[in-house]
């Protein structure tokens, strides 16, 4: 069972997951995991490779639907609405819960078109002027505007890795989501690009509910206010990031934090 630190005040929960299990065929990858995602904080999922943290993250915008053998049980609510319920359109859900992937995956289109893609398919913009505005606003928020404003028609794939990842974040922001899921967003980047992304996460925190999966405990400590430690498909311990790193309760958390395994 999950150990939850008892000094947590009532959170302003944006999403609530209850007893969520994920099966890949017959294999149970996530075993009845519940968590609240706060609207005000950055939540980090940490844990060793293969512990299910990425799989769990992908439940929150139903990206597991794209894997034919994956099956999800339990409920996840986005503002009291069950995202796996019949009333929820997955297209609308993904517009509200955006995602940034491990490896930067800009579309092979211009920087401008990369950002404009989401607003266009969701009908958020009509005129070219609206699109220009959304593109600029998103790039400014993602801290990329100054670097690319003179070459918006260049291919997104021509940018450096760190810039590509910020472009992907800008792309996610462009449809004005409520939650942004980040699946190890810095694992393919060098330390300087990583620092920029972390700074960006700090800037975006509060405006969007952010969940970040990370391998790096230092990163979790730097960017998050809440941390969940995953092990073997379960959350072992959940609490304030500072508490998890300084006063872990569970032995397994302690071992992982101090580098005994992982």
């Amino acid at each position: 069972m999950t150990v939850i630190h008892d000094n947590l005040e009532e959170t302003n929960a944006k999403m609530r997951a209850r007893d969520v299990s994920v099966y890949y065929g017959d294999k149970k990858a996530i075993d009845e995991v519940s968590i609240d995602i706060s609207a005000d904080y950055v939540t980090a999922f940490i844990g060793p490779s293969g512990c299910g943290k990425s799989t769990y993250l992908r439940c929150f915008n139903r990206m597991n639907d794209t894997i034919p053998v994956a099956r999800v049980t339990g409920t996840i609510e986005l503002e009291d609405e069950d995202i796996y319920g019949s009333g929820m359109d997955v297209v609308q859900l993904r517009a509200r819960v955006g995602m940034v992937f491990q490896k930067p995956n800009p579309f092979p289109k211009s920087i401008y078109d990369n950002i404009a893609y989401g607003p266009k398919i969701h009908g958020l913009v009509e005129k070219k002027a609206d699109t220009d505005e959304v593109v600029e606003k998103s790039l400014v928020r993602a801290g990329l505007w100054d670097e690319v404003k003179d070459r918006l028609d260049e291919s997104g794939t021509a940018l450096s890795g760190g810039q590509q990842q910020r472009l992907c974040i800008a792309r996610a922001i462009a449809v004005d989501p409520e939650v942004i899921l980040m699946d190890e967003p810095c694992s393919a980047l060098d330390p300087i690009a990583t620092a920029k992304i972390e700074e960006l996460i700090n800037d975006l925190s509060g405006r969007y509910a952010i969940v970040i999966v990370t391998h790096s405990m230092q990163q979790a400590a730097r960017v998050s206010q809440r941390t969940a430690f995953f092990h073997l498909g379960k959350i072992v311990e959940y609490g304030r990031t500072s508490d998890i790193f300084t006063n872990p309760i569970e032995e397994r958390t302690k071992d992982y934090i101090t580098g005994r395994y992982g």
Partner: protein
Amino acid sequence: MSPITLILIAIGLGLAGWLAGRAKAWSFQKSDPSIRLVARPNYHAWYVAVWIVIPVLAFIVLWSIVAPQLVMQSVLASPAANVLPDFGFERQSILSEARAVASGNAQAVFNPDAQGLVKPFYGAISRYNIIGLVVTIIIGFGGGAFAFLRVKPDFRARTRVERTVMIVLLLASLVAILTTFGIFASLVFETVRFFGMISPLDFLFGTYWSPDPMSSAANPDSTRYGAIPLFWGTIFIGAIIAMIVAIPLGLMSAVYLTQYANPRLRAWVKPALEILAGVPTVVYGYFAALTVAPVIRDAAVAVGISNASTESALAAGVVMGVMIIPFVSSMADDSIAAVPSAMRDGSLAMGATQSETIKRVLFPAALPGIVAGVMLAVSRAIGETMIVVMAASTAANLSANPLDRMTTVTVQIVKMLTGEGSFDHPATLSAFALGFVLFMVTLVLNFIALRVVKRFREAYD
């Protein structure tokens, strides 16, 4: 001594050299464990084997060309050759008869004159066989000894062997290129002859095609060699009607198979679709002529076109389109499937629907493969002959009505070359000019396609 025997000897010597080279390389290591070979023993072995097999094979190729000439020379020098008639067919037949008997391919001679030559032939053949065998063995041992003596602990056998392999690979790829040049050269030669008789302007821009193989070759009527109706027929049937059928069906089936079909269905349907590509075109021809063409004619009559013919461009084009669906769909399928799934996930995670993802992300990224598939299909369609012969007739007709009889370049090439005409007649030579034009058009099409792809592709890596 046939070349097969010599080749077997080459392989045998090569094997012996391989074993010897390896044994020698091993012996260095055995005798002094502190020695480290620069290359592994197997590479030394291959080095020796290559030095035996390649020179020997080169000699065998050379010898199989030279030896018969040497045999012939020595037979002609013998006194028995004096009875031969001076030149011509008779002389050749006597010689080949005697040779056949001497080499054991025939029981006895028909022509008594040949009998006297059997013996000289026999002698010469066995003499040169022995020479060939001895030289083969000398070369084999020579090459082997040279290589064997170079096997030392610090000898870089691996780089030599790898360079040899690379050269072999290079030669293999040259074969294809040289063949293309050969085809091109032979076409150009005959085409130039044709244009010596018929003006290229009449040929390329004339609108009346009816070459008469029976007319005088010296003074051909160049107004009958206007190839425009053929080019039009080719484009209309192969590049327009067939593509209208093949491109949408091929792309849609590729999209279905890669994006919507479940894997078990895909595992069945994709190979089944590819079987279509293996059906002989003659079979499609039957289908076009016996099934599709009458249906089209009946349909045309039913809507009031009373003079519709059973042979129509439409029937040929539609069946041709079906024939090339697998080319389009298979290439499109492969290139859509090759787009990294990160692109697809990225788009879906933005809240794009599956069809938006296909149209706006997957298609642009897969464009090079799709265009390549379409180009392959067009080349295949304009080179297709059988279906057109059977379903669209051989009558050259410049018309935009798909129900008319039409013919294509390839059909006319066949018609001109299978006739009774001599190779000096412009009607026959026109086949080469047509082939040349077809070749150039395909070349230009491919070139344009490559440029288009380069310009518009959305590179994802």
